[in-house]
């Protein structure tokens, strides 16, 4: 079989000021309008309007059958999404947050991810799973996980994380075109963010990373909610004469080695920024790939800025101390550049 037919999309939105929340809502609406087989299912996606108000209004527009409120039964409704995909539908299943996805991991890992290979290619599972992720809202230990790295570990899954308004608006379209399971991680800190969408939104292949800021001295490799922290750090570093390149992974599985390695080889230094806990983070995987494949091109130790290895505490000062911050990134880069004293 061939690769997903369409690798790039251009969406005409005639330019507009909008938020990430509205961008995802527009993407959902477009998907529901464009394909009868598409439906949205999850806890409180309908009457409540989505716990982050992303799907507000869709129930009224598309009705109960296609905007399907589910009971608190993560394992069953995610499994039902997998079954519906096998049955010819194109389900978009919202697991309110990655924290609750711990209750449906079995269905995702043992069924969605294995079915195609295990059946000798007879069945594919074209499901799209959406989850918000990340900390920063003082929701404490059980509601602040960033477990993207777990999903990125599993063969058979495709994992993406929009960081730009364009990707939030457009990635869903490509995800729905993918015949295999795709998990979209939406960082909760992005929804309220505003921006300008161009006339035509160009969405690159969801398997490719993007260089969001070209630079020559060091590669800052990040994704999702941390892109803007990395870009801000890059601006501050520029004032210190350090020219950082910022890579937005976009795809967490597969990782776009070509883009990552090209950047590391060019700048000869890399700092990974990742909101996951440090040990076993996605940052470690990226670093290891560079250490394996670009070792001789490096001028400095690899480094990373991750979340402290602690259940995220409620008070703002402790939560912020646990999470990657612009200053941490700047300091780490200066350290890697040997500019710290």
């Amino acid at each position: 079989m061939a690769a997903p037919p369409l690798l790039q999309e251009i969406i005409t939105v005639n330019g507009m000021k909008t938020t990430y929340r509205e961008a995802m809502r527009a993407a959902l609406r477009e998907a529901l309008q464009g394909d009868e087989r598409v439906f949205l299912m999850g806890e409180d996606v309908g009457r409540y309007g989505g716990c982050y108000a992303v799907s507000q209004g869709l129930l009224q527009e598309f009705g109960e059958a296609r905007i399907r409120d589910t009971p608190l039964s993560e394992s069953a409704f995610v499994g039902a999404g997998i079954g519906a995909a096998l049955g010819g539908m194109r389900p978009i299943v919202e697991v309110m947050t990655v924290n609750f996805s711990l209750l449906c991991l079995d269905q995702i890992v043992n069924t969605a991810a294995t079915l195609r290979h295990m059946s000798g290619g007879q069945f594919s599972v074209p499901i799209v799973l959406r989850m918000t992720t990340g900390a920063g809202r003082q929701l404490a230990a059980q509601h602040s996980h960033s477990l993207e790295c777990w999903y990125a570990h599993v063969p058979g899954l495709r994992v993406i994380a929009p960081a730009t308004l364009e990707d939030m608006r457009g990635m869903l379209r490509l995800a729905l075109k993918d015949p295999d399971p795709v998990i979209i991680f939406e960082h909760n800190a992005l929804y309220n963010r505003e921006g300008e969408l161009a006339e035509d939104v160009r969405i690159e292949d969801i398997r490719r990373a993007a260089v969001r800021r070209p630079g020559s001295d060091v590669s800052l490799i990040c994704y999702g909610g941390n892109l803007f922290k990395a870009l801000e750090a890059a601006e501050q570093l520029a004032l210190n004469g350090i020219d950082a390149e910022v890579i937005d992974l976009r795809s967490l599985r597969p990782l776009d080695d070509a883009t990552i390695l090209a950047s590391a080889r060019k700048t000869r230094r890399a700092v990974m920024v990742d909101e996951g806990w440090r040990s076993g983070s996605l940052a470690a995987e990226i670093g290891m790939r560079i250490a394996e494949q670009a070792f001789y091109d490096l001028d400095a130790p690899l480094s990373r800025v991750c979340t402290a290895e602690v259940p995220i505490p409620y008070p703002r000062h402790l939560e912020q101390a646990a999470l990657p911050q612009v200053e941490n990134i700047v300091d780490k880069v200066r350290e890697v550049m040997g500019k710290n004293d």
Partner: protein
Amino acid sequence: MNGRPSQVSREQGLRWLKDMTRVRRMEEKCAELYGQEKIRGFLHLYIGEEAVAAGAMAELGEEDAVVATYREHGHALLRGISMNAIMAEMYGKREGCSRGRGGSMHLFDAETRFYGGNAIVSGGLPLAIGLALADKMQKRPRITACFFGEGAVAEGEFHESLNLAVLWQLPVLFVCENNLYAMGTALARSESVTDIHQKAAAYGIDSAAVDGMDVISVNTAVRDAVKKIRAEEAPAFLEMRTYRFRAHSMFDPELYRSKEEVEQWKQLCPVATLTAQLMAQKVIDGGDIADIENAVAEEIRKAVDFAEAGNWEPVEDLMKDVYTDSN
């Protein structure tokens, strides 16, 4: 189950009235403090459901254990955690009952055996099973009371936990606070069988539905259940029919229910209902109400002062208590 007594003693009546008033006013204050950003994160108010915690806690002994959810301020307070410690926790101060690390959703207290404060729907049920198992294995005559919402009934853990409790004959009191909604999802949209106590009965557990807006009914039902549990060393299940007057949390536009419905339920306000009965029966008078309100206002004022005066845990202690040896 014995019927609801038509009369209660003055002492009893005043205690419940005060208990419910403490919860009600404390949470009204919390809502206000949330507006001032003194309290952050999620804040789930129990307002409207106070009769359940008030009627139930009165029947638990010191040695018993309590497991609750993220909507647990009332349970924590009436279990005996000081309002100071709760308010300080809401603020995230080190003087809080969880050292400030848990916040509204994670109140804990070893002294009163209050095991939280769980933000995962249905996550507390297996914990209650284990606490009761430990008591049974160590032959301690204790009960573990487990509070959870009707939304949790749809979760697999509810099913697994009830089965274990009955299979192993564990001293657990399951208290389902059926307030008709799980966030915006009405009971009829989450359960194929909306009679939750019947669902429970299917596991072979002693089960009943109770008017959760009436503290006397709640208390009577809990007393009977607790007696049964201690006598028969078997679990019991109570479905408390109640209603939350406020939004699910502070982020909820309440698109899923009508103002009328909310208003109708407010007519059944547990505090007003009990007040009316006690007044009508001349068990108490206006002065008593005033005394309670004044005492509670004072307690709240002190609690807020305590929280305000509290300290932030130093950032150096961030990693403290991740492990016992990380100190």
